[in-house]
């Protein structure tokens, strides 16, 4: 476990340095939510916890919840039908909720990170695409794992929209990036 953590730290450091030129300094505490009720926010929360970073996750975060000491809002994209079924919501309602939360965060001077951390499994249908588009267009920084960018979609997106891109090995390495 320790060896793996050290290896991950190394990989994460490499990943961040490769793209660090355009990336603003990320500052916690973080508040994390999901646009599509996939477990991405829980994963970021757990990875941050393991790295000793304060990152609260709230899958039903509203604009009213974006307050307090938080410096950065992370919104994960990609949808889960099971997750949305569990929460009694749909992709349109999710996009509406997250857009309002992002607007509130920007108004409060927070940095907004648009994330995609669950790989190609969350890039399969039109709901995923809608969630990704809604989150990324308003994000200050794009954060993805390598598996999510297998086809270069996010690299191209970040280039086209001139947004800083942080690309990391996998979800477990996120905590180190947020440090």
């Amino acid at each position, binding site marked *: 476990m320790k060896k793996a953590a050290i290896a*991950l730290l190394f990989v994460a450091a490499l990943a961040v340095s490769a793209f660090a030129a355009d990336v603003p300094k990320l500052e916690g505490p973080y508040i994390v939510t999901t646009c599509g009720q996939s477990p991405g926010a829980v994963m970021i929360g757990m990875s941050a916890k393991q790295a000793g970073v304060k990152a609260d996750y709230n899958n039903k975060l509203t604009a009213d919840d974006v307050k307090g000491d938080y410096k950065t809002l992370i919104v994960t994209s990609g949808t889960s039908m099971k997750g949305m079924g569990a929460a009694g919501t749909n992709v349109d309602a999710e996009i509406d909720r997250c857009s309002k939360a992002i607007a509130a965060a920007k108004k409060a001077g927070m940095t907004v990170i648009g994330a995609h951390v669950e790989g190609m499994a969350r890039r399969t249908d039109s709901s995923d695409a809608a969630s990704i588009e809604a989150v990324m267009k308003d994000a200050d920084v794009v954060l993805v794992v390598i598996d999510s960018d297998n086809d270069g979609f996010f690299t191209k997106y970040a280039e086209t929209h001139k947004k800083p891109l942080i690309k990391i090995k996998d979800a477990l390495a996120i905590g180190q990036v947020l440090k």
Partner: protein
Amino acid sequence: MNLKFVKIMTLLAVIASTGVAGKLFHEHRSFREPVVAGEGLSSVKKLGDYSKSVAGTINDANVYIFDSGVPGGAILIIGGTHAEEPAANVSAQVFTENLRVTQGRVIVINRINTSASTCTRLGEAYPRFFHVKTPWGTKKWRMGDRTANPLDSWPDPEVYIHYPSGQNLAYMDVRNLNRNWPGRPDGMLTERTTFAAMELIRAEKADLTMDFHEAELEYPVENTIVTHQRGNEVAAMTSMMLTSQTFDVPIGMEFSPTALHGLSHREIGDHSDAVSYLAEVAEPMLDRIRGITDEELLMSGRDRFVMKAGEHKLLYAPIDEKGWPADKRIARHVTTVMTLLQVHNMLHPDRAILVEGIPSYAEMIEKGVGAFLHDPSAAPKGRVFYD
């Protein structure tokens, strides 16, 4: 042609075909699967010991209990929910045959729906048995169906109304064990089976349960852990660790929908103190677009039609010429439980479950799962059981 001659020949053909078919069906239904329990076995109970409602029925399964005697938590590992998903019951058996528990308890049911393993799906031309090569010979299991055998649970209702939610489901789902949780003592066979399993979970004070499955690559809930909301953090961490450190194909995580009833990941968590998890792995033989359906496909997970669908991006899991061999599917399930326990122990040290003797993912891939299954003819009599 002489009528009498035709009738005699017809009758002989009827007797012969009925005899051959009957023998094959009987052989499938009556075959007993040997299990060589690991050295750490404490006792073997029956599901009927927890609820009389299932005692003496075909689903009165063996319950293998590994108790360290050291206070800690308890996990129930469930195999054989859907008997057409063989990696599920073999994964459970890898635990049964190799476990040593040093803290807490591990309880394993290799075949929770034995009835479903005594018939195959109508019109699908499934093989009746599947085999795994081992250093001492070939080990054989029954290949089954998704639902219990109609010989044991019949007739099906027009519409199956799940108890206690009242949710309407398809008629045959009354025989589908993973639509019958939490069950009831006076219901149909699978309802009584899950009720007995719930009684076990409550009586043994299980902290967590794992239900093994396999799924077609056309199905979106694939290569993932589905979890009750109380297991979100453990499942997320498990998924991340396995994806980062062990598996070549990532394992995801899904939340259990609150309004979809009858499934283990929802009902066990809702009706007991245990946190319920379900693991899915890709099995190309379950895909509708597969080619020849035989034991080779079942065990190798290689199919050119499924691969072609993958090339057209019609699948939710990757597949190449290497396929999804049974060894890999089983290794993923076994390692998922081992990692789940590791994370559970980190987050709940007061209810830790420590186990030894289980092969690593790399060992199972390198040597094959057969290397970790034991010869019943060479085992001490007291350690051989039949599922």
